């Protein structure tokens, strides 16, 4: 140990600092890309073996899941559409995880946001879209922030494990939403349990005409950038990270740990709530029982794969969107039964998260 220290000290100080910095950045980037790529490759290989063992063509897995989803422009926009909630949630969770708050409740926060956005979106006819769309999105973010904030409050005030409370709040939000769309908010004319349609002025504008892709993708990428700047360039973000690394040091430094934990929960909850608002105001235009196919849980994997860095969440959110599109496509086009597709998808997520853990493990010693 001491030997290496001396060696480093001897060379390091005099050596060209710029080369060092560049070298370090390249090494970091290489690791950041190589690990997920290896994870996906291994998972797909497992999937191919699984298919072959069950009498299907193993190559299908690559053909459909990777190449198939990029076959035309429309499928690419569908991938980006799925990336919107994944990037939003993943980037938000990076902030929570950096603060050592294990928010497992993004799914519930997404529903809380979707309900709030719907309530606003069906209530004010004739409002200017310039006002209405932002109002709906802000309402969604607020709903999610409050839902996350509840778990934060319980943690700060009563030391209740946020892992437990956020999971419980998921159930409340999901079942609460079911109750709303089958009861008080149900559209009486519809055969299905669903809310009334949002007023057209509240719809999030499309980014590309003729596709379902809306401007949410731009907002998601922009907010991920904002959260990166917040975490790594702002004083408040510094405090959030310090509290997450070492609460004793945070107290010593005069930081209010509870306030930072609340902030982390509200930010991650708000991002998930915003994702919910984009789903109802940008895609479905109504509130349904199963508005999310599990984006909130997948967002956890997105954040972990990103190494809890919001910039990385843009890439890993995109990757998970490709995988999700791929497995949907597989169900539609190939003869492979849905359970097998789900298994392959599960293997991919497991493998990706396991590889992420390899990278995070040594850092979390202190």
């Amino acid at each position, binding site marked *: 140990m001491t030997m290496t220290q001396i060696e480093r000290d001897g060379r390091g100080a005099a050596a060209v600092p710029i080369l060092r910095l560049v070298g370090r950045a390249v090494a970091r980037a290489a690791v950041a890309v190589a690990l997920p790529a290896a994870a996906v490759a291994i998972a797909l290989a497992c999937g191919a073996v699984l298919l072959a063992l069950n009498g299907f063509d193993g190559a299908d897995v690559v053909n459909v899941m990777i190449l198939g989803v990029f076959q035309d422009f429309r499928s690419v926009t569908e991938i980006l559409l799925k990336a919107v909630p994944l990037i939003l949630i993943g980037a938000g969770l990076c902030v929570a995880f950096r603060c050592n708050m294990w928010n497992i409740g993004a799914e519930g926060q997404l529903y809380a946001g979707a309900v709030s956005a719907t309530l606003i979106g069906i209530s004010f006819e004739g409002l200017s879209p310039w006002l209405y769309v932002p109002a709906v999105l802000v309402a969604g973010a607020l709903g999610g922030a409050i839902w996350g904030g509840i778990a934060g409050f319980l943690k700060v005030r009563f030391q209740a494990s946020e892992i437990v409370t956020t999971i419980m709040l998921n159930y409340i939000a999901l079942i609460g939403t079911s109750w709303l769309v089958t009861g008080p908010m149900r559209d009486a004319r519809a055969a299905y349990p669903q809310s009334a349609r949002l007023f057209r002025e509240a719809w999030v504008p499309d980014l590309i005409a003729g596709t379902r892709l809306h401007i949410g993708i731009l907002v998601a990428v922009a907010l991920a950038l904002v959260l990166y700047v917040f975490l790594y*360039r702002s004083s408040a973000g510094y405090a959030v990270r310090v509290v997450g690394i070492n609460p004793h040091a945070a107290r010593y430094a005069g930081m209010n740990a509870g306030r930072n934990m609340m902030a982390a929960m509200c930010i991650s909850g708000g991002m998930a709530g915003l994702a919910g608002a984009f789903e109802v105001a940008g895609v479905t235009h109504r509130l349904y029982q199963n508005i999310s196919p599990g984006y909130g849980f997948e967002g956890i994997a997105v954040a972990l794969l990103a190494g809890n860095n919001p910039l990385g969440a843009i890439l890993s959110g995109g990757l998970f969107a490709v995988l999700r599109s791929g497995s949907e496509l597989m169900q539609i086009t190939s003869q492979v039964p849905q359970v097998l597709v789900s298994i392959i998808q599960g293997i991919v997520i497991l493998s990706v998260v396991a590889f992420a853990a390899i990278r995070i493990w040594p850092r979390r010693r202190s």
Partner: protein
Amino acid sequence: MSERPFLRMDNIHKSFGEIIVSAGVTLEVEEGEIHSLLGENGAGKSVLMSILCGILSPNSGQIIYKGRPLNIGSPREAIRHRIGMVHQHFMLVPNLTVAENYVLGQGSPLRLIHDMEKVHARIRELSDRYGLGVRPDAVIEDLSVGEQQRVEILKVLYHGTDLLILDEPTAVLTPQETDRLLDLMRGLVKDGKTVIFISHKLDEVMRVSDRISVMRDCRVVHTTRVADTDPRELARLMVGRDVLMELPRAPADPGDVVLSVEGLSCRNDLGLPALRDIGLQVRRGEIVGVAGVSGNGQTELALAIAGLLPIDSGRLALNGRDITGLSPAEINARAFAHIPEDRHKMGILMPLSLAENAILERYDQPPFAARGMLQRRRIAAHTRDLIARFRIKTPDEEERIANLSGGNQQKLVVARELARDPDFILVSQLTRGIDIGAIEFILQEMLKQRDAGRAILLISTELEELFAICDRILVMFHGQILGEVPADRSRLEEVGLLMAGQKAGHVAQEA
């Protein structure tokens, strides 16, 4: 010394990197005696015993046990050689019963079923024989600390032992429980066992031992029959007279009172009284030392002054203004700097860079923050300045602090705190776990701060460090300040006696 000792540890050396923890220790223990190992914290007592029972392996040296060389690589082998150790921190699973704890890890790992009836019967038999009052079906977490300790001792007896090592067993006990433990030790010896008793409490050692070995600076400096010695001599041996560092310094010229503490009492995190009616003052231009065996309230004193531990009563003032009950942030803002006891726990953020560590308390203040954003260029320049002034060995300010040596990490903490231009500097364990070079540099720096008119309170268990730079030394014992001694090396012995709770030649009565 006998020709064929029961146990002989011969010239044992052990070091971790540059840090020597056992510097050629030689120790002889005779069969059927209570042999005390006496010494201050860090004198190498626990390390020596860890080597004896296979937790650490020595770099060199030989152990002869029962006439044969002993070479063990694990605690499990130690048990096979009938050597048992009761650690300072109990090794019990809190939610299991006594009997379940005893069978843990016993026999083949494939053997899942134990005859618990037999285990219970044997525990009852042993407990009765030594009067331990241990119930085999009691759940550990329901037991008091004293009871848990008896469970630990019985565990060693249960596994079969000829040599029992007790590592600071009385540190956690009440006086009554201590009496009971000392009786038990005598009973064990009567039963043919040999006991090694580690302690830094002079009175207990005098009461129970047959022979005493005093350790200092990772060596055994003296072994004696208890009849041939007295507490005064033992204290002198414990504290030592070696002068390691002689830093040139002018006599202090104390000015106005900067920190004043009156009637301070508080509890530790277990809710037990930790400080009782502490009063002290630190003046501009002086370094006041607080000596004491660790665990006598020094940690709590530092935390209470820094606003990190709520106090029961008392008043704290800085520069004449009341700071009692203020938050750490408010205290930090009043020209108060704090070099904490445990830098890994409190002082630094291991995964972050030096630059990010250099702004810990000032992350939201100019010049390091403007309009809520970190001013990275200024932070980098500031950190480079600290690195240069304190000669911190690092490739650059972006290096992760975890990659630096302990001495360089501590230099950054000291540099960061001094850069805040404080009037008062609270320092705990300034040089713990760092190399000699860094120690000297940091001590010199503290003297410069003193001469620049700053008030410094240095809390330390290292007497060498205290005598090297302090102007006067307060000695803490059982949460109180037992006395004040000028920091003159000729008064070393006096400090040692006060540390052991002896005031003016009398044994202080435990409250």
